[in-house]
């Protein structure tokens, strides 16, 4: 995926270009439509993020899609801080999708706050300086005698003008390129757990999601695709589908998933239910040409065979191989993880309308500008003629970063001449993927006479997202995500053995950080046990050169009273990981309840540098823990080339009563912000497995875990 990169200089120049022309109301705004329009007359834009009306009401635009992660609140908080307004003066709206105005708008890899923090501060500070300069000009005084606070500019003589009174004049000034930023110790908004403005919209049904969108003349499509990926349609009963009341068309279509074509037969009707009923009547016969022999078992058998290969070096320090060659006491453990489904609660859906020289998109996406690029390139339509209407997302978790779901709708719109809304069933979401990869991890180590690790090798055998099609057989660094190389181990080798399968995979919350740490942090625990050392002290001794990890470990030891005498009947497990810059440590506590292991409490210490909104970071960690538990307890099974678990009755999500107590502490930090959207997920599985070992003496090396029969 390529998006326009805007240099910082260019970005700041855009401030004056867009200046006064961005008036509220010009902006196509699916999310913001549901916010009551309380503004007075003529809000004036100071830049593409900030408009102020004559009564001083401040409208701040969030330009990154909201999928639950909280950018809708966090981006405006950063702007408001430097703009020097009170957060209660602020009304948040969603910006339009426009890479020229807003740069990269994708929400992936916990990047938003990390990549936007400084830019948003500058946008806020630039607008504040324009307002202050406008006041100075009106008063005919030196700007240095003026200061701004709470939406008011004050002169040293004591006279004041409100932002509402100044905005018109300020909008005519050019934006300063290097505005002065606040000292972080003076932050009043950043660092506060300010309540989310999207919360009220999400308690009364007024928040709009992609699936809620409609447009005049729209038809609904339900699409049957081969349950065995890459299967080809041989025959289907078009007449049976057309016989359903409301069905208008039966058409073939397709979409590309990482370079591979997935066929589908679409039933198009004037309502969703008729399209769905028509689809059930299709009775498509598929040619699955040998792919239907493949199962999870055969895949894992292949992976075990493949693990005999040396693999490609992804990271190396010292000479681990030499240590292994000279040792007769090599510790080896293998860990297996299954495919997983994203399961956003909002099933995939999209509306596309493709005309001769224009196109329009409606939907919930992590990548609105990617939707524009696709329609523009595919149908040779100028980008400015492609209108993008993006909404809140009912979960994304990586699945909504892809543009594949648009392809069928656009194709069907082109074929029929009508706007087409494609709605996936839950079964479509579950069985079509793309999925989180499955993997085999083989870890080897040698301990020296003092029980310290002298050599460690971690070999990952898995598919790689970027190399699913094509001839590249060399493993890339993507495969080693989440493997902590911060430990001071003299000889380390991280290796990858790249696998190619017909099962499509993609980005899933935390990506390879959701798989590799289960192996790595379980293995570190196994080595601590072998060395006869406390797992926390064992790790801490290897982190002299890593102050951030050291800090989170020391804090979690303190918070969980780790070194105090153990509570009877409670097993404790520890893990630590870095993801998107965030450093975190987790302790899971488990007990025996009716002969099953039950997680009681999950405690996380997280260092994300400067934290914009601690409560949102806590919420993200709570979500990561619950998602991690679901992935620990269940997974997808491939049988006869297809997924067995088709809906929640066979792929159960963790339920309300299964949620342990989740305690999250966000450490105060002064470093630039890190990404927090995936923190906590990578540590859950290893910390849980380590806790189970502590309670039962049994080592879990395969996911999904069965918590019965262990105690």
């Amino acid at each position, binding site marked *: 995926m390529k998006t326009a990169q805007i240099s910082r200089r260019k970005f700041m120049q855009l401030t004056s270009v867009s200046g006064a022309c961005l008036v509220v109301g010009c902006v196509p705004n699916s999310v913001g439509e549901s916010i009551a329009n309380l503004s007075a007359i003529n809000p004036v834009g100071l830049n593409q993020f900030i408009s102020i009306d004559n009564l001083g009401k401040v409208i701040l635009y969030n330009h990154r899609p*909201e*999928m*639950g*992660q*909280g950018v809708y609140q966090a981006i405006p908080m950063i702007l408001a801080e430097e703009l020097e307004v009170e957060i209660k003066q602020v009304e948040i709206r969603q910006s339009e999708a426009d890479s020229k105005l807003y740069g990269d708008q994708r929400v992936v890899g916990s990047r938003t706050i990390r990549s936007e923090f400084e830019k948003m501060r500058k946008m806020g500070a630039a607008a504040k300086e324009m307002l202050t300069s406008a006041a100075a000009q009106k008063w005919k005084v030196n700007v240095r005698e003026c200061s701004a606070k709470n939406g008011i500019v004050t002169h040293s003589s004591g006279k004041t003008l409100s932002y509402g009174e100044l905005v018109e004049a300020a909008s005519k000034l050019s934006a300063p390129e290097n505005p002065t930023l606040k000292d972080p110790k003076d932050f009043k908004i950043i660092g506060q757990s300010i*309540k*989310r403005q*999207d*919360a*009220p*919209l*999400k*308690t*009364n*049904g*007024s*928040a*709009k*999601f992609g*699936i*809620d969108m409609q447009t005049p003349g729209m038809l609904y499509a339900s699409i049957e695709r081969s349950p065995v990926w890459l299967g080809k349609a041989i025959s289907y009963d078009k007449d049976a589908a057309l016989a359903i*009341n*409301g069905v208008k068309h039966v058409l073939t279509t397709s979409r590309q998933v990482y370079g591979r074509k997935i066929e589908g037969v679409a039933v198009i009707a004037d*309502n*969703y*239910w008729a399209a769905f*009923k028509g689809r059930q009547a299709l009775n498509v016969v598929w040619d699955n040409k040998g792919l239907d022999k493949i199962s999870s078992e055969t895949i894992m058998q292949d992976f075990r065979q493949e693990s005999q290969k040396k693999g490609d070096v992804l990271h190396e320090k010292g000479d681990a191989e030499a240590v292994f060659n000279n040792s007769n006491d090599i510790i080896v453990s293998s860990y297996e993880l299954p495919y997983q489904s994203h*399961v*956003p*609660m*909002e*099933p995939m859906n999209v509306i596309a309308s493709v005309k001769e020289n224009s196109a329009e998109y409606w939907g919930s996406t992590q990548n609105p500008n990617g939707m524009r690029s696709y329609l523009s390139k595919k149908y040779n339509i100028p980008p400015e003629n492609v209108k993008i209407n993006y909404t*809140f*997302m*009912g*979960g*994304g*978790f990586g699945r909504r970063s892809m543009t594949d779901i648009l392809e069928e709708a656009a194709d069907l719109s082109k074929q029929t001449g009508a706007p087409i809304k494609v*709605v996936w*069933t*839950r079964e479509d979401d579950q069985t079509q993927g793309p999925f989180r990869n499955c993997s085999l991890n083989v870890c080897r180590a040698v301990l020296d006479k003092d029980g310290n690790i002298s050599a460690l090798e971690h070999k990952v055998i898995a598919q790689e997202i970027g190399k699913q099609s094509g001839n590249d057989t060399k493993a890339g660094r993507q495969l080693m995500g989440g493997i902590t190389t911060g430990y001071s181990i003299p000889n380390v080798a991280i290796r990858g053995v790249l696998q190619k399968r017909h099962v499509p995979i993609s980005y899933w919350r935390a990506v390879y950080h959701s798989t590799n740490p289960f192996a790595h942090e379980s293995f570190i625990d196994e080595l601590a046990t072998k060395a006869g050392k406390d797992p926390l002290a064992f790790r801490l001794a290897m982190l002299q050169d890593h102050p951030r990890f050291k800090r989170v470990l020391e804090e979690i030891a303190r918070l969980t009273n780790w070194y105090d005498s153990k509570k009877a009947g409670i097993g404790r497990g520890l893990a630590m990981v870095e993801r998107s810059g965030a450093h975190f440590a987790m302790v899971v506590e488990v007990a025996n309840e009716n002969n099953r292991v039950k997680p009681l409490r999950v405690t996380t210490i997280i260092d994300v540098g400067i934290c914009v909104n601690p*409560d949102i970071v806590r*919420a*993200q960690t*709570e*979500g*990561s*823990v*619950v*998602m991690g538990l679901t992935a620990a307890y269940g997974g997808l099974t491939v049988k006869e080339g297809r997924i067995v678990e088709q*809906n*929640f*009755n066979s792929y159960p*999500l*963790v*339920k*309300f*009563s299964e*949620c342990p107590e*989740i305690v999250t502490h966000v450490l105060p930090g002064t470093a630039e912000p890190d990404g927090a959207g995936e923190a906590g997920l990578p540590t859950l599985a290893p910390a849980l497995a380590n806790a189970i070992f502590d309670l039962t003496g049994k080592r879990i090396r395969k996911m999904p875990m069965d918590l019965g029969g262990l105690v």
Partner: protein
Amino acid sequence: MASFSLKINGKIETVDVDPAMPLLWVIRDFIGLTGTKFGCGISQCGACTIHMDGKPVQSCVMPVSAAEGKVITTIEGISENNDHPVQLAWIDEQVPQCGYCQSGQVMTAVALLDKNPNPSEEEIDQAMNSALCRCGTYQRIKKAVLKASKS
């Protein structure tokens, strides 16, 4: 196709649809109340929860023909100003993340508290287990239900 008169949120709505069409799609696509969500289609996730004669019902498996003559309430109908005690508690505890399942969560909680104004934690567990949340907001939901039960 057949004509049905439905009493939804105090109003009578008339639709001409397939009698087997689940109430969910009637409410969303024909009546235009989109707060009720599609999640699974097999009454396993609770995103489509509405009230029928005061009881929580999964509208994704309820044919429209079974809804005639019943009093139906959707998320849009539980308060005028987003000020039902459950909604206020939800906002206060900052429950929603993506928000997609929250209509169903709120409707499930409202039905529980209507029937049982002071539920025990076990009773909350039992009632709320029918509503799945992928964002993992359960801990906050529990606090919000307890808060609403005390208001």
